[in-house]
């Protein structure tokens, strides 16, 4: 299908073949799926189209579990989605957890089941705390989050 699109677009254009990625959204998505967190953030700033895809939770789902040694069970997705989605899971828990736990570039690493489990647990605790605070008039104030220890840069 891709090739057909390519050839058709090539045919429809002038002698110079132009390839405009925004015309090929499925390729775009495939590429975005393989990016790491910071790159996804950058990609989201390129244009509105890219932004809409980079913010799509399924891309982040791939990011979260891409390097896990064994694929997560299917029951994970509804839980994560209910707790705020994969992007939030990545930003709030996975990324800080993995960057703290790994010595080298975390993208290359294989993430163990334990780390993912721990991140999910912390994610759930965070959700619980935020939901409590919103109800109690805290207004989503992040300053009292139980995950603050992850977010703060440590200055010893």
């Amino acid at each position, binding site marked *: 299908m891709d090739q057909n699109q390519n050839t058709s677009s090539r045919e429809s254009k002038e002698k110079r073949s132009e390839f405009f990625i925004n015309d090929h959204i499925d390729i775009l998505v495939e590429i975005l799926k393989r990016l790491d967190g910071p790159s996804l953030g950058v990609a989201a700033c390129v244009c509105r189209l890219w932004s809409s895809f980079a913010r799509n939770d399924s891309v982040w789902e791939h990011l979260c579990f891409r390097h896990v040694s064994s694929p997560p*069970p299917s*029951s*994970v997705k*509804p*839980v994560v989605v*209910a*707790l705020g989605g994969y992007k939030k899971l990545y930003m709030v828990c996975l990324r*800080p*957890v993995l960057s*703290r*736990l790994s010595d080298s570039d975390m993208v290359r690493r294989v993430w163990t089941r*334990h*780390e993912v*489990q*721990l991140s*999910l*647990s*912390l*994610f*759930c*605790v965070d*959700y*619980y*705390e935020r*939901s*409590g605070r919103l*109800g109690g008039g805290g207004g989503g104030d992040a*300053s*009292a*989050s*139980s995950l*603050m*220890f*992850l977010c*703060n*840069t*440590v*200055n*010893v």
Partner: protein
Amino acid sequence: MKREHCHSSATASQNNSKPEYSSPPSSALNGKAKIWVDEQGYSGSGGMDELLAVLGYKVRTDDMADVAEKLEQLEMVMGSAQEDGISQLSDTVHYNPSDLSGWVQSMLSELNTGEDMPSINGPLLAPGESSTRTSTKFCNSQRTRVFNDDSEYDLRAIPGVAAYPPAHSSSETESTRKRLKTSIGSNSGGIEVSGAVSDPTRPLVLVDSQETGVQLVHTLMACAEAVQQENLKVADALVKHVGLLAAAQTGAMRKVATYFAEALARRIYRIYPQDCLDSSYSDILQMHFYETCPYLKFAHFTANQAILEAFATATRVHVIDFGLKQGMQWPALMQALALRPGGPPAFRLTGIGPPQPDNTDALQQVGWKLAQLAETIGVEFEFRGFVSSSLADLEPSMLDIRQDEAVAVNSVFELHGLLARAGAVDKVLSSIKAMKPKIVTIVEQEANHNGPAFLDRFTEALHYYSSLFDSLEGSSGPSQDLVMSEVYLGRQICNVVACEGGDRVERHETLTQWRGRMDSAGFDSVHLGSNAFKQASMLLALFAGVDGYRVEENNGSLMLGWHTRPLIVTSAWKLASSTE
């Protein structure tokens, strides 16, 4: 599975092979109870003083007396030196500044070339010459003020050597007393007090901002001793001393000393802290404690792992939480149950809490929040709250335990309070047995704050809370959290030190003692598996930058500690010789 070396009273050096921490009672006592009082040698950490080791200075415990004397001498010499005395020092190159003995020896020899000074080992001064000079001035003015006190506060009256740096032998106690006499007599002398006089009559420096807390500790101990002996005048004087000394400290030491001094003062003046009816306030404090440091998180995660493993195949589960508070333990368990292979079981939670002063139903609010979460993640949930001022008032029949459900009992820091009333803990343990739980998870502080003698309790508590405050020092996060966590711990300190009888609820006991109690009540230990250990280790690794937490395994229980000192323990139990 990692096994780390903890206290071992037999080691002479720090670099041994790592023996298993099996904690026979004698070594546990050696390791902890005597760390402040035993002047001849601190067991554990290989002959180096622990407190100073934390600060980065390596001082042999045998040399502590010498270290203190050398410091005094050095300070005197520097105080009496000329303005260019500092530049004399700057010529020397110091290698290995953590070796205090060598460092000050070299400084002394440099300053006192030609003077016949006895050689001593090692100062307690932090390397900062200019600040030493200001401290000399400061302490001298303090000294004048201090020693103008009424002779009723005669510190010589204190029996034992707890108040002053330890002497090598008992004969030096006399020189200590002489030292004090000289300084009392020379309060108008100012700075140059017997600079050239030999050893025994050197004036005693009681207030010194550079001193790293040895003096402070000794004064605290002396005060506690005086309180134990009902010698309240002396105790009163010492408490004020502690206040002065604590003001010269910084960081964890200052805070610990301040709290202990306050608690001692309350005990002396019999101003007991108000019985805190406002449990919501203590809940808030505990929340801040939860956020600042990993102790509670460790407790929750390890207990949850044990419960999860016990509930591996159950379809209906019922958890009884002896102290629900804000319910922070349960979201993680519910999430783990939701993702359990085979789907989540029906989850029932019974939360027990103290009565609220304003009659709000805090338990129901927590239950409602948890129910919302359960609905979000797709776990069938049921909640029941029980208000009870004491766990001993609970009857198993009230809890409506159904036939087909697997029961877990969870107690995080709730059992030690029962020891204040006779028979309460036995009643609760038999209630637990009547509930027929599949697993009982208990998290308690690892310390003996329930001994019969006040001084022992005080000593233990001082060591314990020093470690705890020390671990808080490096924590990141808003300072508001840190302050509230310290207040939370400060209330515990106050309770341990100032209260007695039924009011003293912070009756912590060691794992060994709890094990004995559980064994005799008819429970068998359940080993926490490697999953719990790994999770706990990972959790601690997340507190990056605060590199001092240690997870240890102790016969199936997991201990979280700060450096070499275990602070809290999670243990799991099941009914002995049960049918399952």
